[in-house]
C-alpha cells in the first residue's frame, strides 16, 4: 500500500500514482506493487455483524423482559450492552433505508415502502446517489460485504430479469446477496434471489419441509467460511435481516410446542407479566407506568373460550417463530466465534424494524393477504376459513399464511401504546438493541439509555472502523449523515447524548422529539384500516394540526403514560412548528405522500399490456407478474401435445391461498382461481386435450372494470369452447406478498392442491409460448379508474408490508 495516507473522503479511492519507472523493455523498469493492490480498511477495523429482526416489539425478547426465550440475544447483551432508548421509523422499508444510509428515511425516498414508488421525493422508493449507503462506503474502503435475508429496498416493478439493478443489494454496496427482495416471504416457500437472479423456491429434505431461517443462517455461515478461505485478514460486514417475525408466521411445531399453554391467560396478563420482568431487569426505569390498552383493542376478558384458545395458539406460534430466529442468529455468532473472530466483531442486533405488527386485525387472520386486499373477515368467518385450511394445528404450518391478533402485537410492544405504522408513539418506534464489542465495552452487561436512532448506526460503525464519511462518491457530492455516532457510549455510560432532536412520520402518524419532550400526533385512524372510506377524511380539508396532540416528557415518563399536552400548550406549539421545519427539510411533505393514489394522484397508465413467455420460465417475481386484477384478460398458450396426451402445469401464479393456474390433468384442461383461499373457482374442459399443435385459451370476461369484479371464464381449445364457468369475486389488489409465477410447472406451494403430490407438476408436452393479454379494451375513463385502484392497492399493501 502507498506510504502516504489514503484519502478516504472521496470514493472510490483512486489508485495511487505509479511509483516505479517504465522503460521500453523490462530492463531498467522499476515495479510498484501498489498498482496491483486493493484498498484495505484502516488498520484494526473490526468485522461488523448487523442483525435486524422484523416486525417485533420492545416487549418480545426475554432479554428485555419479554415472554419469548432469546438466550443468544441475552448472551450478546450480557457480554455487551442493552440500549433501551433505541428508535426506528415504525415501518419496514423506511427503517432499512435509514439504517443503511444513515439518513432520515424520507430524504432517501423511503417515506413508505418499496412496493410503491410515488411521485414525490420523499416517497419515490429510490435511494439517491448523493446518499451512498453504509455498505457501499465500507465496500469502497476495502470491506467484504454480504447481505442475507430480507431486503425490501428494491421497487416492486424492478425485481425482474430486466432490472434495473442499481437498487438491488449488489447495486447498493453488497458484494453478495442471498435472500428475498420483497417485504416478506413464506418461511417454508420463499422465492430466493441470489445476487442478480431470482433462483427459485428451495425444497426440503429428509421428509422435512424447507425452512428459510435455518437456511439463511447456513448461507451466512457458508459465506463467512468461503471468504475466509480466500482472505484471512480483511474485515467483513454482514447484514443479516431476518424474515422473522413478519407474517406469515411460520415455524415447525417443535418450536411452537414449547409455548403450549404459555399464553392461555391472554394478552392483558402478558402485558403485566412482561412489564414486571422489565422492571426487574431494569430495562425500564423505576417509576415507569404500564400504558393503558386503547379501546380499539379487545380485552381478553371479553372473549369467549374458543377465541381465547385460538388467539393463544397464535401467540404460541409467534413465540416459537421468534425463538427459532434467536437460535439461528446464535448459530451465526457461534460460527464467528469458532473462526476466532467474535471479539473482533462489532455485533449490533436490533430486535424489530418497527414495533410489532397489528395488521392481523382484531381476530388474527389465516391469510394475511385478506387484510392487505381490504377484505374484512368476521371472527366467525376467520374461524370457518381456518377450519377449511387445516384447523388450528395448521396455524404455523406450510398451508397457511397467518398473522396473529393485534392484541398480541400490543402486548409485544409492552410497555408502550400502539405498534407498527404508528410513528407517533413508542409502540411503533422504540425497539431493543444490543451491541457487543469487547474492544470498546468496559462494563459488559451494562445498560445504555442514550436516545439513539436507526440513523445513528452508520456513523457509529464508520467511527469504530476508523473510516470517514465521504464527501464524494462516484463524483457526486454527498449529503451529510443525519445520524450521530454513539461509539463512545460503548465504553462510557456517561458519554454525551448527541441525538437530541428527531422527527418521526409514517402513514401520517407523526412525532417530534426534542430534549426529552415528545409531541405525538396520531391521525385518527385505526392502523389496520386502510380502506378509501377511512382515508378520505385525510384528503381535501384535512388540517393535520387539528389532529389530537399528546405531549410526553420522556425522562420522567419512559412509556408515554402521562399526556401533558393540556399542561404545556406552548411546548405543543413549539414542537408542532419544529416538526413542520424538519418535515420540509427532509422531504416528509406532502404528508401521506405515500398514499397519494388515494387522493387522485395516480401514476401514468402502464403501456405494457401483452406479456409473452417463450417456453418454460420459472420463478418470476411477484412484482413483475402481469396485473390481471379487476378487468377482463386472456391467457393463451401454444403447445405441442404428444400422442397419448400430456399433463402438467402450463402456467401457475402464486399459491392456493391466492393464485391462478392453467393446467392439464387426466387429459383435461383446467383453470383454477383461488380468491385468497376464501373462495375458489375451477373450470374444466369437457373433453380431453387433442394431440399435436394445440392452442389453449382462458378468457375472463369481467362484468365491469371494477375492484373484485365477477365475470365469466371461457376455456377454448383451438378456438372452440370446451368449458367455462362463473367467478363471482376476484382478487382486487394482490394475490400474495411473495410467491412467484412459473411457466411449465408450479414451484413452491401449488395453486391447486389436487396435484400437490406431483409438484412441481412439469408439463410433459412442449410449451411454445404463453401470452397474457391484459388489455381489456377499456375506455379511457375505466382505464384511469382501474389504474387508480391499482395504485391504491399498491400503496395500501405498502403501508402494511
Amino acid at each position: 500500500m502507498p506510504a502516504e495516507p489514503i484519502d478516504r473522503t472521496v470514493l472510490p479511492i483512486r489508485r495511487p500514482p505509479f511509483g516505479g519507472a517504465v522503460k521500453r523493455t523490462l530492463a531498467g523498469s522499476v515495479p510498484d506493487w501498489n498498482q496491483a493492490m486493493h484498498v484495505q480498511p484502516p488498520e484494526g477495523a473490526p468485522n461488523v455483524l448487523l442483525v435486524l429482526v422484523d416486525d417485533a416489539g420492545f416487549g418480545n425478547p426475554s432479554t428485555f423482559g419479554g415472554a419469548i426465550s432469546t438466550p443468544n440475544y441475552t448472551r450478546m447483551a450480557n457480554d455487551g450492552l442493552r440500549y433501551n432508548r433505541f428508535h426506528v421509523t415504525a415501518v419496514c422499508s423506511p427503517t432499512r433505508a435509514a439504517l443503511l444510509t444513515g439518513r432520515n428515511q424520507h430524504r432517501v425516498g423511503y417515506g413508505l415502502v418499496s412496493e410503491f414508488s410515488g411521485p414525490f421525493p420523499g416517497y419515490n422508493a429510490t435511494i439517491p446517489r448523493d446518499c451512498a449507503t453504509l455498505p457501499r462506503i465500507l465496500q469502497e474502503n476495502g470491506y467484504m460485504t454480504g447481505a442475507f435475508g430480507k431486503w425490501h429496498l428494491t421497487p416492486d416493478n424492478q425485481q425482474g430479469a430486466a432490472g434495473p439493478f442499481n437498487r438491488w443489494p449488489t447495486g447498493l454496496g453488497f458484494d453478495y446477496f442471498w435472500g428475498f427482495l420483497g417485504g416478506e416471504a413464506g418461511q417454508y416457500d420463499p422465492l430466493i434471489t441470489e445476487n442478480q437472479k431470482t433462483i427459485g423456491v428451495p425444497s426440503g429434505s429428509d421428509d422435512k419441509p424447507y425452512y428459510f431461517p435455518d437456511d439463511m443462517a447456513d448461507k451466512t455461515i457458508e459465506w463467512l467460511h468461503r471468504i475466509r478461505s480466500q482472505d484471512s485478514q480483511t474485515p467483513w460486514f454482514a447484514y443479516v435481516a431476518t424474515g422473522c417475525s413478519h407474517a406469515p408466521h411460520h415455524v415447525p411445531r417443535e418450536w411452537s410446542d414449547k409455548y403450549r399453554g404459555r399464553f392461555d391467560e391472554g394478552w392483558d396478563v402478558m402485558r403485566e407479566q412482561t412489564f414486571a420482568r422489565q422492571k426487574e431487569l431494569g430495562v425500564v426505569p423505576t417509576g415507569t407506568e404500564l400504558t393503558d390498552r386503547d379501546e380499539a383493542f379487545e380485552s381478553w376478558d371479553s372473549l369467549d373460550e374458543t377465541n381465547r384458545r385460538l388467539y393463544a395458539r397464535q401467540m404460541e406460534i409467534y413465540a416459537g417463530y421468534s425463538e427459532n430466529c434467536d437460535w439461528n442468529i446464535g448459530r451465526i455468532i457461534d460460527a464467528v466465534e469458532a473462526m476466532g473472530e467474535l471479539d473482533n466483531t462489532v455485533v449490533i442486533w436490533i430486535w424489530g424494524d418497527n414495533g410489532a405488527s397489528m395488521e392481523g386485525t382484531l381476530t388474527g387472520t389465516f391469510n394475511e393477504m385478506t387484510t392487505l386486499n381490504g377484505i374484512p373477515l368476521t371472527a366467525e368467518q376467520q374461524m370457518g376459513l381456518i377450519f377449511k385450511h387445516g384447523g388450528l394445528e395448521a396455524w404455523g404450518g406450510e398451508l397457511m399464511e397467518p398473522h396473529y391478533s393485534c392484541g398480541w402485537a400490543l402486548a409485544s410492544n409492552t410497555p408502550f401504546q400502539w405498534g407498527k405504522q404508528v410513528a407517533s408513539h413508542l409502540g411503533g418506534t422504540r425497539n431493543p438493541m444490543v451491541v457487543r464489542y469487547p474492544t470498546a465495552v468496559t462494563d459488559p452487561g451494562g445498560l445504555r439509555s442514550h436516545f439513539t436512532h436507526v440513523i445513528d448506526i452508520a456513523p457509529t460503525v464508520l467511527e469504530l472502523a476508523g473510516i470517514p464519511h465521504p464527501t464524494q462518491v462516484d463524483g457526486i457530492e454527498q449529503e451529510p449523515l443525519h445520524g450521530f455516532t454513539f461509539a463512545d457510549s460503548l465504553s462510557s455510560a456517561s458519554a454525551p447524548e448527541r441525538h437530541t432532536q428527531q422527527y418521526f412520520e409514517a402513514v401520517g402518524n407523526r412525532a417530534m422529539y426534542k430534549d426529552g419532550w415528545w409531541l405525538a400526533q396520531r391521525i385518527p385512524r385505526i392502523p389496520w384500516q386502510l380502506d378509501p372510506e377511512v382515508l378520505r377524511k385525510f384528503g381535501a380539508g384535512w388540517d393535520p394540526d387539528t389532529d389530537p396532540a399528546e405531549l410526553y416528557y420522556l425522562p420522567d415518563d419512559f412509556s408515554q403514560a402521562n399526556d401533558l399536552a393540556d399542561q404545556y400548550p406552548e411546548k405543543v406549539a413549539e414542537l408542532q412548528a419544529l416538526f413542520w421545519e424538519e418535515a420540509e427539510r427532509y422531504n416528509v411533505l406532502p404528508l401521506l405522500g405515500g398514499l397519494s393514489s388515494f387522493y387522485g394522484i395516480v401514476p401514468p397508465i402502464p403501456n405494457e399490456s401483452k406479456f409473452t413467455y417463450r417456453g418454460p420460465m420459472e420463478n418470476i417475481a411477484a412484482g413483475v407478474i402481469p396485473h390481471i386484477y379487476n378487468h377482463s384478460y386472456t391467457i393463451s398458450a401454444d403447445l405441442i401435445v404428444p400422442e397419448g396426451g400430456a399433463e402438467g402445469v402450463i402456467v401457475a401464479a402464486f399459491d392456493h391461498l391466492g393464485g391462478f393456474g392453467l393446467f392439464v390433468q387426466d387429459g383435461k384442461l383446467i383453470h383454477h382461481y383461488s380468491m385468497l383461499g376464501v373462495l375458489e373457482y375451477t373450470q374444466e374442459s369437457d373433453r380431453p386435450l387433442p394431440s399435436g399443435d394445440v392452442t389453449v385459451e382462458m378468457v375472463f370476461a369481467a362484468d365491469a372494470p371494477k375492484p373484485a369484479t365477477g365475470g365469466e371464464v371461457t376455456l377454448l381449445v383451438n378456438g372452440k369452447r370446451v368449458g367455462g364457468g362463473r367467478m363471482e369475486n376476484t382478487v382486487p389488489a394482490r394475490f400474495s406478498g411473495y410467491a412467484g409465477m412459473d411457466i411449465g410447472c408450479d414451484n413452491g406451494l401449488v395453486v391447486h392442491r389436487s396435484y400437490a403430490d406431483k409438484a412441481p407438476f412439469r408439463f410433459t408436452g412442449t410449451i411454445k409460448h404463453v401470452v397474457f393479454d391484459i388489455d381489456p379494451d377499456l375506455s379511457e375513463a375505466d382505464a384511469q379508474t382501474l389504474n387508480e385502484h391499482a395504485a391504491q392497492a399498491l400503496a395500501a399493501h405498502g403501508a402494511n408490508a
Partner: protein
Amino acid sequence: MSDETLDVLIAVYLIPDLAKEDFDALVKLIEDKTVASDGVVLVHKDADGVVHVSETGDHLGRKGVKVGGGVGLVLGLFAPPLLAATAVGGAVGGLVGKFARKRVAAGIGDKMDDALPPGSAGLISVYDHANADIVDKTLANAIRTSTAQIDNASAEELKAGLEQAGSGLAG
C-alpha cells in the same frame, strides 16, 4: 320415532375439548329429557389425523329410553373405513340398532372424516325440531353449525338432511 319434524345438525369445532363440553351438555339435556333426540355423536380428529369417536349418546335413545349397546348412532353415521380407525371399530355388528343401520345406508361417515382437519372436532345430532333453540344455545363453542329438517329418520331423509346441513357449513 315420532312423526314430528326432526332437525339434523352438524356442528364443527376448532377446539376438541370445547366440543366435548358441548357434547356433555347436550347429553345431559337428553338425559334430563329436556331434549328429545335420536342420538348425538362427537368425532375428534387428533393432531396426527387419527379419528377418535370420543363419546356417543345413542345409548340414551329417544326420550331417555336406553336402548342398544352404546354405539348405534356412531356406527350409523360413520362408514366402515372411518370406523376401522376408531376404538369402537371392532364392535360393529351386534350393536347396530335399527335406526343406526339406516344411517349406515346414508353413508355420510367418509364425508365427516374428510371434512375434519387434524386437531378439530365435529358433532352431529338428530333431535326434535321443537328443541332447536335450546340445542343451539347449548352448542355455544361451535364455530359453525348448520341444520336441516327432515320428516322422518329414513336413510334417505337422513342423508338428504345431512347433505343439506353440510352444505350450510361451506363458505
